[in-house]
């Protein structure tokens, strides 16, 4: 059922026909779902290699008549896309670092410490998510303007170091699944709150922190509206904004180039997710924590 199974010989003994059948069925169910889920992405890749007039052919053509790899070249060179990718990476990576660090600290406070005002502040924190951002957009923009932060990465990075309600709440939930006996034992041994956080909570939360990191990075990477309004200079833009340029004011676009650039933008996220799974699999080794 979980990663420990391979270490336990008993599981191998119980490898029966029934289990094989169950496994085959699971594979089939998953493959069927993957087939459905993959349709948009597959169409995106197929479109990225087409000539423009092939995009809307009927019946739809899955394999282009000739593979036009030059779409990728044109899509990436018509604008300084390498700089955009670099900017995106800078913003997303520092933002992720800040968000994971700060959110995990705050979540620890909400999950594990008792202090006056905690419950009210927790509600206040959740309620900040409930006001549509469209109405706070202009006041927020004026605020960053007064700070002199327009046309810099600061509005996109600095707030990340002050925790994100979405992730604080998530980590709080994770921390609350960690038995509190562990902290109590540690405290009896004379650990301070920070040591409890650092020695007990953090090591137990590998999968959760990795998930938060993946989700934050993805969110920052794909977000186009904040970079769009806060960054004005052409060389400071991000890849997510770069994608928007393929569409014209009438809703048309150079579809093959747009899809090519979109695919390139997805690759770092796919690589990140694929490699972050190592940390998902790390799981918890209960006995490793000495109470």
């Amino acid at each position, binding site marked *: 059922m979980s990663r420990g199974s391979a270490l336990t010989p008993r599981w191998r003994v119980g490898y029966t026909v029934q289990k094989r059948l169950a496994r085959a069925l699971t594979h089939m169910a998953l493959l069927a779902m993957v087939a459905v889920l993959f349709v948009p992405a597959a169409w995106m890749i197929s479109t990225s290699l087409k000539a423009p007039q092939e995009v809307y052919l009927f019946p739809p053509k899955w394999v282009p008549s000739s593979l036009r790899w030059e779409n990728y070249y044109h899509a990436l060179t018509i604008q300084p896309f390498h700089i955009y990718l670099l900017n995106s990476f800078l913003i997303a990576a520092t933002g992720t670092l800040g968000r994971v660090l700060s959110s995990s600290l705050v979540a620890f406070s909400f999950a594990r410490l008792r202090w006056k005002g905690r419950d009210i502040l927790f509600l206040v924190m959740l309620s900040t998510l409930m006001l549509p951002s469209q109405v706070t957009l*202009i006041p927020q*923009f004026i605020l960053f303007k007064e700070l002199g932060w327009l046309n810099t990465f600061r509005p996109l990075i600095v707030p990340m170091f002050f925790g994100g309600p979405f992730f604080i709440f998530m980590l709080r939930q994770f921390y609350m699944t960690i038995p509190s006996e562990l902290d109590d034992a540690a405290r009896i041994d004379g650990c301070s709150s920070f040591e409890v956080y650092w020695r007990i909570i953090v090591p137990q939360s590998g999968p959760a922190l990795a998930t938060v990191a993946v989700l934050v990075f993805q969110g920052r990477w794909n977000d186009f509206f904040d970079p*769009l309004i806060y960054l*004005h200079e052409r060389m400071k833009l991000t890849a997510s904004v770069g994608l928007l340029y393929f569409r014209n*004011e009438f809703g*048309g676009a150079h579809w093959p180039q747009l899809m090519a650039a979109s695919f390139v933008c997805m690759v770092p996220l796919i690589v990140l997710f694929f490699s972050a799974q190592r940390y998902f699999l790390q799981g918890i080794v209960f006995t490793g924590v000495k109470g």
Partner: protein
Amino acid sequence: MDNKRLTRRRFIAIGLLPSFGALVAACAPRVVERVVRETVVLEGTAQVVEKVVTATPPPARPAVNVTLTISGTQDQAKNYLRALEIFNAGHPGVNADLEHVPSAEYGATMQTRLAAGTAADVFQMEAGMWINYEGKGVALSLEPFIASTPGFDKADFFDVPREFFTYQGELYGLPAYGGPLVTYYNTEAFEEVGLDPLPTDVAQADDWNWDALIAAAGKLTKREGDLVTRWGWVAPHEEWFIYIYSGGARLLNEDATRCLLDSEEAIAALQWMHDAIYKHKVAPAKTMVTQRAWNLFPAGRVGVMIDRRWVSSSYVRQGLPRNWRLAPLPKGPGGRRSTTSSWAFSVYAKTKSPDEAWILASWLAGTEGILTLGIEGVPQRKSITMTQTFLADTNSPEENRIFVDQMADAVFQPAKTPKWNQLLQEAFNPELDRLWADKATAREVALAMTKKANEILAS
């Protein structure tokens, strides 16, 4: 500690700011004459002399930076970068820089920046923005600049866009690009079903009328069983206004305070559109909102479509095979009337260098600027549309002339009311959806649209 207190005080100030931010943003139009102190040498001694300077900046000053914000694709940005290089080389006193916003988000981005009082010196003023900003001190009146620029002829702009950007007799934006609608038709499909090519000369196109459109579309519509593989005509849905006008009716009254869609002519026009879908079955019931005709047209899935000039530029730029030609709009009972829209270069009211901003704006909207930027849509100066460069661009000269001819009595869209978008989204679109879905008659829809529109206009 000291630092902390400072941030707090600052924070309080910021907290209050949003409510007053717009106060700062409102700003009276600037007078163009400026008093400049100049050090001159008079008989051997340096003296400070105050003098009034108008539009032309004094020479031999370090170049003044001005920023330009436009929207568009990267192709357009490249053209602008090239144009600004030429501009900067020819104007040593000015150094122009480009900011470039993707079209889909241009409105919200500019509204945010204007609300916060921090826009570029020169920016692209879209018609849809101007309906709200007119008379609110966002842009400088260009009249003083025009007065001090020898040879500047306001009458060179087409009347319709010029009047749109004029407020209380003063021009606030130099119309750059825009344009009316024409007929696009697929020549291969026309040959396939044995239709003659359409006329290109508006004066000789009397036979290309509504009935002819329906007849041609009937021949062009191709079916495989229940499935339509090519529609004769894609849809009145996208530009239904032109059929109201070509049908001899009007959308709103002159000062955009009342909706006139309840006229018999308007009802007849709506009925005609409905018939194309449900009686003659030559157009689809409702196309997807963004999967518009110009996407389907190059793939040969549409015989005739009605669209603007940028579509042809876009097709040519993408290297699509030219299996299509242009023709005037089909003539309706009330004539051959198109709608047109355009956008202009405006000078931001809070610019620190109005004179240099004007030099940039007038250069960009002038002949040299437009010809360097490339011809997108229809340039809004009559003189440019008569040049060989325009006539030879993208289409044949005869085809390009259609755009100019259709410009003559085109109706500017949007109408000049801040309620325009609300009219579209709340009074017109939902009701028209009922017409396209055959849920209501043309008369019911026309009356419902008029009633809702008048409520919105009266509120």
